[in-house]
């Protein structure tokens, strides 16, 4: 990860407010994400977690108040796996629409092995299950060099062993100077300071 990341924030949200369908989801929400932070976004269903995430990464550009500054590149994994059924996992990663890097075959194979898809590299993705599609997407966590990860429900449809491998990878990322913002309804089992981002109050430790 970059050295400069330690000194300046990776993401700054300034007085974000969002109202949907006449209901105020959050108001004057301000926070900074710095290197080394592992932040879990808290809230019940419909509280506005995904809306906030989409604002943070820049997919929602209108309809909210406040500003988001993104000095660092962001790796965003959303609800949709972004995996093409007609392409193999290897092709999906090598030709990924995010255009973030050029990966060697070995790098892709290693990443797929990390997410438990060893031997599935060249199988058409339509032959894979929903959980395996999610895993193909999660393999990007092993390939990316973005300092900030924004993950929306990364544990959805992932089995127990997959979850613990993922937790280890998150831990590895934050201890190497990256930062993670994620939503999850499961409690994270990591040996690290987990900070909570609440929609009504900002970041609390």
């Amino acid at each position: 990860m970059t050295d400069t990341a330690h000194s300046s924030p990776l993401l700054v949200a300034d007085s974000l407010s969002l109202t949907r369908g006449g209901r105020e989801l959050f108001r004057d929400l301000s926070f900074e994400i710095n290197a080394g932070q592992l932040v879990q976004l808290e809230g019940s269903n419909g509280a506005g977690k995904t809306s906030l995430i989409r604002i943070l990464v820049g997919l929602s550009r209108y309809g909210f108040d406040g500003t988001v500054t993104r000095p660092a590149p962001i790796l965003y994994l959303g609800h949709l796996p972004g995996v093409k059924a007609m392409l193999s996992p290897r092709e999906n990663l090598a030709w990924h629409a995010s255009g973030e890097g050029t990966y060697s075959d070995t790098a892709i194979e290693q990443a797929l092995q990390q997410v438990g898809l060893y031997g599935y590299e060249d199988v058409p993705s339509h032959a894979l299950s929903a959980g395996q599609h999610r895993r193909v997407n999660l393999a990007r966590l092993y390939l990316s060099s973005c300092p900030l990860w924004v993950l929306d429900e990364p544990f959805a449809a992932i089995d127990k062993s997959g979850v613990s491998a993922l937790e280890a990878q998150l831990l590895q990322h934050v201890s190497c100077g990256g930062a993670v913002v994620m939503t999850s309804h499961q409690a994270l089992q990591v040996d690290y300071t987990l900070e909570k981002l609440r929609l009504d109050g900002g970041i609390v430790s």
Partner: protein
Amino acid sequence: MSAPGSLQFCRRLLRRQLTLAVRRPVEIGNPLLFFTMVVALFPLGLGPAPDKLADFAPGILWIIALLSNLLTSDAVFRSDFEDGSLEQLLLSPQPLYLTVLAYIGAHWLITGLLLALICPVFALMLNLPASAIATLALSLLLGTALLSLLGCIGAALTVGLKRGGMLISLLILPLYMPVLIFGSAAVKGAVVGSPAGPYLAIIGAMVCLAIALAPLAIAAGLRISVDA
């Protein structure tokens, strides 16, 4: 590991789109099949008199080309929107202007270029004079590029809607009119022996203008569709 250059990324996207198309041959074949069926129906409807058919052939061929393009343009961004690839494309550090051109290029290669290549067969079915066939192919080659560029604007604007098919026709058909007018005029000109060059030049100019402006509209349309 480093971020790919913009052109390299475009080539990669182009390859991805073409691979996807080749693995779903139905989507390449459908517009061509549509074209064949409609061309085969005209002699039945108009009567099989060769002279009459030859008179109408330029217009008929161009109208079908336009409709078959309309049929396929709806799908350009649809699957990427549904599986989340489009979100990733919008967030990528690559210039959207160029990546959008890669999508359009792929669409043109699998619809327009193929059509221009096999149009001589259709021209013979409608008894178009042999002297006009080269002009027909050339006008389709240029014109379908313009159709793809314009069609993708409609596709970008309607990709977020469940059934955007009808809306895309309403949005885009008016923009298709100049292509139809100059495209069929070029072929008609070639039939009677007058030079087709000026018409083709006008289509070429429109293609240049569309290459410059359409990607901007498409990029904005995609951002709005993903935002909504």
